[in-house]
Each structure stands twice: as structure tokens, then as C-alpha cells.
């Protein structure tokens, strides 16, 4: 077993929707140009009842939730989607047959078809950077520092400290996926 378990904690009240994370991700990971190919994104939390002037705005950056119980891995017929020992869900592009079961299974719509490499692609927590001791590009580039990249195996680390002392939530907890993206309430 690995002695690491990576997660991201987000304080999205700080998000200004500048999309530096999306641009950094696309450049770092050679995500093809185009409006429909991206590994991370920023959405606006829509309040349908809002009527001028009683409105509020809130942005929520997101990406693959790096679920501890990842449905995409379970449904993959060729085992192209797999989970590393440190809990990161990756795709072996050579094994991918583009059946898109994983895209259907993902409750977070976090996967897309990469038209350059003809495989399904997604956030890797910038796995290639982790080995060099660098944080994912989205974490490093964010001007208001919405994201914190943490190791949950580090009992006294910043991640566990925040999770113990602050109220956080995960997206779609009812799906039982145990996401490793935590949003500070």
C-alpha cells in the first residue's frame, strides 16, 4: 500500500471564475483546443428563484472527484480506467476502446473524448508532476488560492486539520462514490 492518499480541498467562496485553472490544465496536459474538451471547469451555482435585485452569485470549480469508490473503474470492460495505490484514478489510453461506459457511469461528467489521442481522458491530479514534488497545475495557478492539494495519509497534515476543524461537503454524496474533492461550506 502506498503511504499517500491525495485529495483537494476547495474554498469556492473565493472563486472569481477567472478560469486560470482551466487554461493552465489545458496547457499543462495538452488538452486539445475546443470548447468541449477540458479536464476541469468552473460552473456558476444557479439560483433559479433569483429576481433582480435579490440575487447572489457563486462559482464552483470542479474536475474529476478522484472517487475512492470510482464507478468509472468498475464499468470499464478493458480495465483502461484504473486506480493507483495512492488513490488517483487514471486512464491507460492504449487500452481504451472508446466505449464510453465510463462517461455514462461518472456522476460528475468529468470525462471527455480526447480527439488527439482517440481515448477517453480526464483529470489525473497532474500525476506526472506529483513525482517531481509539484502540485497539480490548477492548484498552483489559482490567483485567489481556492484549491489546496493535500495528503490524507498525513495524519497531522493541513488536509486532515482542515477536514477536522471546518465543515466541508462533497458533491452528490448519495452516489456512494466517496469523492476526494472536499468543498468548504
Amino acid at each position: 500500500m502506498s503511504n499517500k492518499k491525495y485529495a483537494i480541498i476547495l474554498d469556492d467562496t473565493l472563486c472569481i471564475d477567472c478560469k486560470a485553472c482551466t487554461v493552465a490544465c489545458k496547457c499543462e496536459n495538452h488538452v486539445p483546443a475546443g470548447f468541449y474538451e477540458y479536464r476541469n471547469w468552473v460552473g456558476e451555482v444557479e439560483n433559479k428563484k433569483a429576481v433582480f435585485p435579490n440575487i447572489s452569485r457563486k462559482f464552483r470549480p470542479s474536475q474529476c472527484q478522484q472517487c475512492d469508490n470510482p464507478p468509472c473503474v468498475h464499468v470499464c470492460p478493458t480495465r483502461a480506467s484504473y486506480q493507483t495505490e495512492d488513490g488517483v484514478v487514471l486512464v491507460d489510453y492504449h487500452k481504451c476502446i472508446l466505449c464510453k461506459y465510463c462517461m455514462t457511469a461518472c456522476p460528475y461528467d468529468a470525462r471527455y473524448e480526447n480527439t488527439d489521442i482517440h481515448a477517453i481522458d480526464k483529470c489525473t491530479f497532474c500525476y506526472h508532476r506529483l513525482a517531481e514534488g509539484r502540485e497539480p497545475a490548477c492548484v498552483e495557478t489559482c490567483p485567489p488560492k481556492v484549491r489546496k492539494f493535500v495528503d490524507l495519509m498525513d495524519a497531522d497534515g493541513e488536509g486532515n486539520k482542515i477536514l477536522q476543524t471546518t465543515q466541508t461537503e462533497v458533491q452528490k454524496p448519495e452516489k456512494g462514490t466517496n469523492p476526494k474533492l472536499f468543498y468548504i461550506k
Partner: protein
Amino acid sequence: MRVGERGEGKWKKVSWDEAFDYITDKVVKLVREEKNRSTIAFASTEGMQEEFFVDLANIVGSQNTVRHPTLCLASNIQGYASVYGTFPDADLVNAKFVIMAGANRAEAIITPDTIDMAKNKRNQTLVCIDPRATKTTAMADKWYPIKPGTDLALVLTIINYIISNNLYDAEFVKEWTVGFDELKESVKHYSVDWCAKETEIEAKEIVWMAEEFAKNAPESVWYPGRRSSFFVNDVYLRRAAAILNAIVGAWDKKGGLVPKSAVKLAKHEVLFPYFDWSEPRIDVGKFCFIDGLVPDHEKTDAGLPSDSCAYLSEKDGSWPVFREAILNKEPYPVRGMFVYKQNPVESVPNRAKTLEMLKGLDFICTIDVAMSDTAFYSDIVLPESTYLERWDPAHNLSGLQPIVVFRQPVIEPLHDTKPMFDIMCKLAHKLMDRKEFWEDTSEEDLELFREGCLERLTSNPVKSFIHHQMSKYPGGYEKLMEDGCFAIHDEPVFGQTYKKGRLKTRTGKIEIFSQRYLDKGLNPLPAYSKHEEPKSGEFRFVVGRHGQFTHANTQNNMWLLEAYGETENSIWINAKVARERGLRTGDYVKVKSEVGEQTIKVLATEFIREDVVYYLHGFGRLSQGLTNIYKKGASDAAIIKDYVDTISGNAALHETFVTVEKV
């Protein structure tokens, strides 16, 4: 180099040498014909090589440099400086109560303010005042969609409330300000109820703001912001905001307004020759055409000059007045123009006039990293190396905690481009070789210039220049090269004013009442006057920025355009108003003002007032070189009227009314 008509888009590639010869010929010819070096104008905007462009203007001997502040923050600088003698920063990291009115730090990103705003989010109350819910609203605790043009009523009412309820810092006011009694008298009729009607912000909210502002002082701040080119009497609003901070003593203390500090860099000691043929600037002095740039009622109501600008920065000038002077050929003809990094076609209001101005010029040279609209209308375009491909000199970023930064190339230039520095050097030497260009200066002057100035300016590569710039700080150059930045203090320094015992004003105090203004025939104290309102069926047009784009510069960048999410902009119309007019999101409408019209897609939204419409700057472009956005969406420069604030020379971008019709 252009081969077709101006703006036709027909070009031929020429060698750098041919280009420099062509430019030199044109400059020499025009200067000699006019017997006036100032016939060549130089337009530029902030950038780390801008100083080399200004060097070129000085070598040519032109007085006519025109820069971006009068499309941006000239009135802000004038307003705050008239009170404090300097344009300060807000200490957003420590402030407990911040009012951000008309500033949008989430989308008009500047360092460090945008980041500081986030740092202190959970301990700070942020009030956002804006007729539309910008993305800054997401960060704010309160949002008040104020009626545009009434901010001054709000500030003066808050001042009155604070004074009449004895919430001001009496000791500070007594020791550090002049004119408080006159202020007290002049604001006493601005009641909360009147203000609520005027601004359309509820009375209890106005009271809350006033009380919180005073309670949190000195850790409270009316954020000065950046762009202040709103209305023609904008300087009075900025003066009032500066005064509000002064009466609660939130000056040069943690969490308040703080004067900027700087790290002083060494310069080249350069003496440019004395030229007989160098006429004064074209935008300084009295001109009858300025009368047409100020709305009639404002001349009387706001007491604004209508024949000249009261305080014009002598290097920055005033873009709207400058252009008008060229069009009127007053006081003399300007026949040539160099443009660096700026794009007047898209950034100066009333695009038709800018195109007319360009059409009348005999020579236009644009230096840019992209085929901007102005480049597209030029005779010759010099492609500059991008910031990743060149050395940039050391640059002092003044502020609460001033730092020095520089740039070094991370890649070799991808294309056959040159940095501004090289362009200046080459042109300087080409001009030097033309004997006939120096007829109006003495042999001695010229010799001095050749040896002392030209040698110094052009022989050093930028890297050695940085060494010279940092010469005041032993080890500073090495530190800069190692860390990428250099600072004298690790923490901001507060209270310099109190140490020095005076401010940089005439009286040495904070000038609430301005004798200088009175002497110029201006209001010595800020007074509110109503702005014209949209007629029935019209909307006020407001301008704004988006986080993905730097002004009109980066829309053509594929990654940024993708991040924006669309290839065209949309006009924000209040959802209720849109319903009443049968408009739906995605419909196309014609937006028409007094000066132009554009066609654009509708975005029906709850995020804007009913009497206001808005669309994003930087679309609807004329340059075919901007392939991703050419003729996509609508240009705001095409419809904004070119009114001018005649105190600072700043453009007034929110005085335009438009009609919106379905197409």
C-alpha cells in the same frame, strides 16, 4: 508593409532594413515639411518596454506622446492627489470594511488587489456597488445596484451622516486636514432620504454603510479602484471618496488608504538636444472644440471648463482631446503616428472618429505582437517579440509593498520579431545618419547627444541596463536575477506621512477644501449635480471587463476565448425588460447610439438594472488579422460617445444612451 488601400488588408513582407529605411524617410520628410517635430505623434500604453518607445519620441523630438490614463484612471489620480498629494492604494489585506463602487476586481484582475481581496475574505465585509452584478458580487457580502451616476450623492450623504452623528475622527481632522468646517456646511443638505431616492439604495442600507464605515475606521476604505472614466465630473466623485476616508482618519494606517511606496531605480542621465522645431503638445491650451466634448447641462451644473482641460498630465495627454485636435488640425497639423502596444481604434470611444483620424494621417507605424485593429489600418507594422522572448528592463511596481521585477526570455523568438528596444536603437541610428534631420539643432548639442545619449541608450543590451538600474542597491542585481523580484521591505510600511509631518500638498495637510481648485474656477468642495437620464425607451450603456481578457488585447487568443466560452459577446438586458420587449436570450438586436450602431446577441439576465445595458469590451473587431473574433459580436468603442472630463482630460464612458431593436 501596406500595399493596398488603408484597411484593405493587403500587405507585403519586407526586411527589417527596408522597414527602418521606409520609416526614417517618412519621419524625416514630414518633420522637414512641417518644420515641426511634434507633427509625429506617439501613442502607447503601459508595458515594460514602453520607456524605449518614449525614448524614440524624445529622439524624434516630438512633444506629442499620448498614453492610456485618460481612457482609464486619470480622474482617479487627479481626484485623490488633489486631496492627499498622491494617488494611494487601499490596504485590502487588513481592511475590515471595504466599499467597492464601480470597481470589479474579480474580472478586471490586478495584482495584488484581486488576490488581497480573497486573502481577507472571511474577516472583511465587502460591499459591491454596481448597476450590474459583476463577478465581484460573488465575493461580496452586499450588492447594491445603484442608479448610475449617483455615486457622488451616496458618498456626500455618508459624509454628512458621519459628521452630523459625530462619528468622525475629530482629533485627526483637526490635526491633518484643512477645510473641514466648509465641508460640514456644504454637505448638510444631503439627507439619507434624499439620497435613497437619488441612488435607489434603501435608506437603512445607506445608514448601515455610514455607520459601519465609521465603526471600522481606520480599517475601512472606499476603494479607489483603477478605471474611473465614468462621467464628465468624475474628479469630484474621486475627491469626495478621498475625503470620506480622511474624516474617519483612515489614512496611512493599517487597513486604510496608504500612500504608495516605490523602489527607486537608477536611470540613464540623458540630455536630449534642444530642437527649434518642437512645438508644444496639441491637447494643451484653449480650444473651442472642447465645448463639443462636454454635455451642455454639465458645463453649468458641474462648473466644468469648456475650452480646455484644467489639469492635464504633460506626458499622458488626453486621448479624446488629442484626437479632436488632430481632426481639427489645431493648433498645427499632426501628420504621422507611431503606436506601441495600444489599439486606439478599439480603446478610444467613438471608433468612427478614430478611423477618420487615421485616414487623415500621412504615415502610421504600429509596433505590436498581434495584428490589432490599429495595426490593420497602419502603413507599416513592426512585429514585436512577445514577453516570453525578450529581456525587459527592471520595473518598479509601486504600492503598499513595492517590488522590482524584470523579464528574461524563456524561448528564442519563434518568428522574425524584435523587441521595442532593438527597434528604437535601429531607428535612432538611422535617423542619426540623416544630416538633414538635425538642421534645427546646434552642432554641439548634436555631438553631445551622439556621444552621451545615443551611445548610452543604444549600446547596452537590456541586461546591462538592468545592472545599471539596480546600481543603488548593493547585491540587488544578483538578488533580482536569482529571485526574479527585489524588495527593500518584507512587510508594508505604514505611517510615513506622520513621520515626515506633512503631505505632498500645497498646505502640507489633507486638502478637503482645495484653494487650487477655487483659483482655477472649479468647485473647491465636491458638489453633486444630476446627470442626464435616458429618455423613455433608451438605456444607459455601461462598459466593463471580463476575467479572461486584458482590455481588447487577448480576445483572439484561442485558449482565453475558449475559457470565455463563446466567440462573441452578448448584450445584458434585464430579464423583465427583455420579456416586455419580446426579447429572448440568443435573439439578435441592433444597438444604436448617437455615434454608431452594432448588432449583437441578447442575454436576458437578472444581473442588471432595468435602465442599463452592458456588453463586453473587445469584440466586433475590424482587423482581419484577428481571425477568431473578426466581425464577431459588437464593439463598445463603436457606440460610446466621446465626452471628456475637462478637469483631468479623462474620457467619460458612461454618458452614452442607446436604443435596442430586434433585428
